């Protein structure tokens, strides 16, 4: 049995694979690095699979919190793990857009699934899940309802995509001027898409484009991204666990080698 753990800034994910590369269990806990999230997610994934720790032959940890998690046998970056996980699920993938809670990445793959190039956002929160969380808070909307709110928009407004703090005060000004919440929500999604499209532009986009990470669950971001990069964007069934799946695949390869 092979364990992959992906410790992000806001969530902790884990996947267990058997030796035939079937996913035995997966877990997503909504707390990330620096919390009990990593331990909880490992406990949950073991429990779902009916396994104990000793039955894990090899484990790989990835994600923002990979350096501080001591229990894994090896640590590998989330760029390599998202690449491996995505290619396993969708071998036609050539571009991966991974938007997580605190960062955004664009990864280019070759036909063998190897990373050809990648681009990451800087330490700024614009273009990440954090930007949407801030917008949801101002709009008094639950984060998982933000996309639904956006779908009701009647017109499109522009929101700064360069800085979350600037955008926050900009949105408050828009609301004070009477702009409808749903229109602001749509503008926020568009701002994320523009920012990530700019990142993608640095290394180029080649189809098939696949989106991973928690923000892929937000349909409005996916729609806006398709418009910005002018390519169809495929969202994998469980986009949040792709990094953990990639880590589990690496764990399998370590033993299989």
């Amino acid at each position, binding site marked *: 049995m092979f364990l992959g753990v992906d410790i992000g800034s806001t969530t902790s994910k884990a996947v267990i694979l058997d030796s035939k590369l079937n996913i035995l269990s997966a877990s997503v806990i909504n707390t990330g690095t620096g919390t009990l999230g990593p331990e909880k997610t490992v406990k949950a994934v073991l429990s779902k699979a009916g396994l104990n720790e000793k039955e894990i032959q090899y484990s790989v940890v990835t994600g*923002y919190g990979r*350096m501080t998690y001591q229990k894994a046998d090896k640590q*590998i*970056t*989330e*760029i*390599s793990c998202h690449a491996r996980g995505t290619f396993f699920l969708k071998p036609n993938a050539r571009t991966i857009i991974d938007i997580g809670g605190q*960062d955004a990445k664009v990864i280019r793959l070759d036909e063998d699934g*190897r*990373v*050809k*190039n*990648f*681009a*990451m*956002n*800087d*330490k700024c929160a614009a273009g990440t899940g954090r930007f949407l969380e801030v917008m949801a808070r101002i709009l008094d909307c639950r984060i998982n309802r933000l996309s639904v709110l956006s779908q009701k928009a009647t017109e499109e407004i522009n929101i700064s995509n360069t800085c979350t703090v600037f955008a926050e005060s900009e949105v408050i000004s828009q609301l004070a001027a009477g702009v409808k919440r749903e229109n602001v929500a749509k503008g926020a999604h568009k701002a994320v898409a523009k920012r990530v499209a700019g990142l993608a532009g*640095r290394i180029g986009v080649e189809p098939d484009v696949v989106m991973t990470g928690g923000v892929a669950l937000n349909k409005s971001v996916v729609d806006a991204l398709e418009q910005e990069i002018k390519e169809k964007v495929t969202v994998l069934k469980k986009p949040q666990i792709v990094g953990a799946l990639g880590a589990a695949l*690496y764990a399998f390869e370590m033993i299989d080698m």
Partner: protein
Amino acid sequence: MNRIEEIIAIMEDVSRYPAKAIRESMEETGKEVIGCFPLYTPEEIVYAAGMIPVGLWGGQKEIKKADKYLQSFCCSIMKENMEHGMEGSYEFLSAIIIPAYCDTLKCVCENWKAAVPDIPLIAMVYPQNRKITAGVEYLVNEYKRVKDELEKISGKKITEKELEESIDLYEEYRKTMSQFVAIASKYPRTIDAKKRHSIIKAAYFTDKKWYIPLIKELTTELNMLPEEAFNGIKVIATGILAEPEVLLDTLVQNNITFAADDLAHESRQFRTGVSNSGTPLERLALRIAGNQKCALLYDEEKTRGQLLLDLVKEYKADGVVVFMMKFCDPEEFDYPIYKKELEAAKIPMLYLEIEQKMDSVEQIRTRIQSFKEMLTV
């Protein structure tokens, strides 16, 4: 500790504590010290004036006062230099020379007069068209002006003989360094990316007469060892400066070494020598005229990409690491041009946008590790 380790430790100490090293040089030689802002400040003239030129390439100070003059989008080396000046860290300098290569440096000349009035400024401007006769003549006149200013500070005339001797010393420095980096590439474990950087950096804070023999000795000692096997990644580094140190630590941790570099702070300083003909100042001006492939010197043919390709080939490097100093316009203008050429040649490239003081390097750590995995996993 063997002799190689001893010399490396001396150089690391100088690089880590530059103010201490400079004060020691001042005490030992009895010479005054002139601060030289980047990039090709005429150190030879300073040395001929009987003073020690020291390089001012920023630092890792928290910016508090410099924001008064330089906005957040200005080059972080200039902000650091301004902060050090305003904080009094440079109080031992008799003067500073600022060559105005870019928009920020132009403004810094004026800012300095107001911000740090106690340290006299010698401003100079390099010609855009440095290769044509008028450009060379203009630069010779600028050097004359710098020479006159330095003579006023030192209180003595600089003779032709002193200039020639100083140029000879700096030519020896350039030759010594070129030999060192060529040899160092064969010993990537003994001279890793961080040690290489410290050794080259130490030259900025010491008298070249003290520094050169040590580097020669180091090169000779290295040469006596068998070449080191290396199973890591060899890269060509390009950009202005490979700092802060945590970046170099991360590269070393990931078994990435510099096979060669095209850094303004390192090889660009010594890869071009002076002309053999003309007056001393003409020889210096012709060195700048002949200096190519640098973002700060106008290059109408845009040959930097080819230089990087040549270095990759010569040193059998696995890729190129770009150290993009925020917000260096000349470097940013070059980047899309050589990026296209490296991509066409399928050379893997890692782009790192850096500042001298970086409180959070986690994302850069991920980028460096991902680059390694991209080439090895």
